């Protein structure tokens, strides 16, 4: 492996993921072995483990790949600068879901697995989420600078929220049985409209002001009630 260049390694990695997803789609996740994937991809039975320790890792490898491709395609889009914030986010989602489309069945199965499995696997998907956070933070910052939305000290939090929203959209899409997923399209259209409207109004900062006032003014009472303990406990579950 040391003799291979980074580029070559990346190509093999890509090939493994694509082969794995194709096999998972055809035979199912359980019925597909690492050996099968390696042979189909034309690499050694042992070599595959240098790239992916187990089948689970292949799943998030796939999600990571789609996220990277989506970001690249999004940034390469013509006339992106003419898009409004809402249109940009809508475009991002559109590209994202379109990239999943060829393997929709596998996506449905694997999403269900991820959502049902203990937090270990779920955490493994986190790198995917981080990638969009950066992209969305940039979009939000641009929109703030252009005066399209109100300045907010919580852009980072908003970016994370928007990123979770992407995951929520994916979940909705996976369960969408309308023709050409038009329900997802409309849901995204309407919910983004609302979301961007909220950002535009600057209500986020105002709401946070109010919350921090309450926290500061009533902190001691909270401490006495064990509420904070509960909050911390919840946080440790990754919520």
């Amino acid at each position, binding site marked *: 492996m040391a003799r291979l260049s980074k580029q070559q390694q990346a190509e093999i990695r890509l090939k493994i993921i694509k082969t794995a997803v194709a096999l998972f789609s055809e035979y199912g996740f359980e019925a597909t072995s690492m050996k099968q994937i390696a042979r189909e991809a034309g690499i050694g039975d042992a070599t595959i483990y240098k790239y992916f320790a187990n089948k689970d890792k292949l799943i998030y490898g796939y999600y990571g790949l789609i996220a990277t491709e989506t970001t690249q395609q999004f940034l390469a*889009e*013509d*006339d992106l600068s*003419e*898009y*409004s914030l*809402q*249109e*940009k986010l*809508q*475009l991002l989602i*559109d590209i994202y879901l*379109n990239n999943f489309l060829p393997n929709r069945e596998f996506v449905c199965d694997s*999403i*269900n697995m991820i*959502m*049902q499995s203990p937090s270990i696997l779920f955490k493994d998907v986190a790198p995917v989420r981080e990638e969009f956070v950066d992209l969305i933070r940039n979009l939000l910052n641009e929109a703030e600078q252009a005066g399209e939305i109100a300045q907010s000290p919580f852009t980072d939090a908003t970016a994370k929220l928007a990123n979770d929203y992407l995951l929520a959209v994916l*979940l*909705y899409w*996976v*369960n*969408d*049985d*309308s*023709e*050409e997923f*038009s*329900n997802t*399209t*409309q849901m995204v*259209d309407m919910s983004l409209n609302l979301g961007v409207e909220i950002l535009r109004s600057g209500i986020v900062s105002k709401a946070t002001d109010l919350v921090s006032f309450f926290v500061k003014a009533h902190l001691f009472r909270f401490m006495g009630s064990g509420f904070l303990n509960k909050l911390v406990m919840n946080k440790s579950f990754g919520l």
Partner: protein
Amino acid sequence: MLTSKKVPTSKLSRSAITGAAVAKIGLKHAGYKVRKAFSAKISGTKSSDTKNSEAKSNEQSQQQHEEQIGELVFTVLSQLRGTAIKLSQLLSMETDILPETIRNKLKSACHEVPPINRALVRKQMVQELGNTPKQLFKEFDSKAFSAASIGQVHRALSFNDENLAVKVQYPGIGATIDSDLKMLEKLFWLLAKTTNKMPKQQVFTLLLTEIKNRLSEEINYEIEANNLNWFQQHMKLNGIVIPKVKHALSSARVLSMEMLTGQHIDKWLENQPSQQQRNELGQKLFDFFWYSALTLKKIHADPHPGNFLVLTDEQLGVLDFGCVRSLSDDFVDGFTAMMPKIVDSYIFNKNKSALFASYQALKFIDHSVDFNTFESKIFPDIQRYGQWLGQAYVSKTFDFTTKTPCPGKPDNVSGTAVKFLSGMYSEQPCFDRAHLGLMNLLTQIGANINTDYSKFITVK
């Protein structure tokens, strides 16, 4: 976990919306009954001209009642976006099938059109034509220049430098139509129970079926493209221009066609055209309609001012062939046979039995209605409408500056006529709507034209 719960489909939440409105209408109806009893009591205490004032206040409260229901219907419809707009347009036929106040509410729904933003336009293009607007056209204006009822129209330039109008449909509008119509059926059913002016169930079932068929055609732009081609081939009248379809850039949800340059009739009228110009344009519109109806037996069923352009060389450009209706031979024969009798009966007050027979032939009334009932209950109720309908066809020419507006409401408020309505040919609603549109346009233009359509009648 998250996925174990099925996301609510939009149909469910939509039913919830109607459910709420249905409940509300039920309450309003209860209120109406109380008010009706109350108003009867009040008018009963007055000594002078009791009967008259009672009728009057009854009429008033009925109207209020209809308005309230209309408002609720509108609330429901406006939550359904595109489909509802189309439905409302189709339903706002001025013929007296639905109560006036309800029709008015439906009409006002026409102004709301859901916008399709840049990202959605791009999505629709990629989905339909496999590429982004940027790659498909030399230039593509992502701001729509005109709103269509279930989509919007963009200006574009092809790589061959042709100016195009590109109609893009709102994504998912087709998928929602069925559930929307089911809800509308529910609403109609309820309205029939709460106002005494709704037609028989069989009549509004027929109306709904017709609307459903037209809508399902209208959401398929391939059908519209075929209509455009068909009319282009068969329209032999001079001075009528129908845009050419750009098939390579069209699909079921995107329609690219030649951009016609001219002015919409409203705009053209602002420049005070001469009487002669008005007459010429009016004649073209009139001939276009009757030639389509009687010779081609297929009509453009959406004749509102926005769908006609006065081109720079004074030719008439016809747009939007989404709603086109074929007319059966029987209907055309029946209708052409009826028109002279409309004139005779309503304007010259003679030959009513022939009109009675015509109404039967057109299936408006069935054999349970005898001539006496027709003459005493139906005829007076729709006399004003009949006069209005016959007006333009009394002689071979007609000056539309003297045209009276279409009476929206029968003379008396009893609304009995509609109760006798037993049915009609399925093309009747579209035909009526198109004919009404024509009359309104000609009146707006103030044209003085030859209204003898008999030259277009084809002999079998």
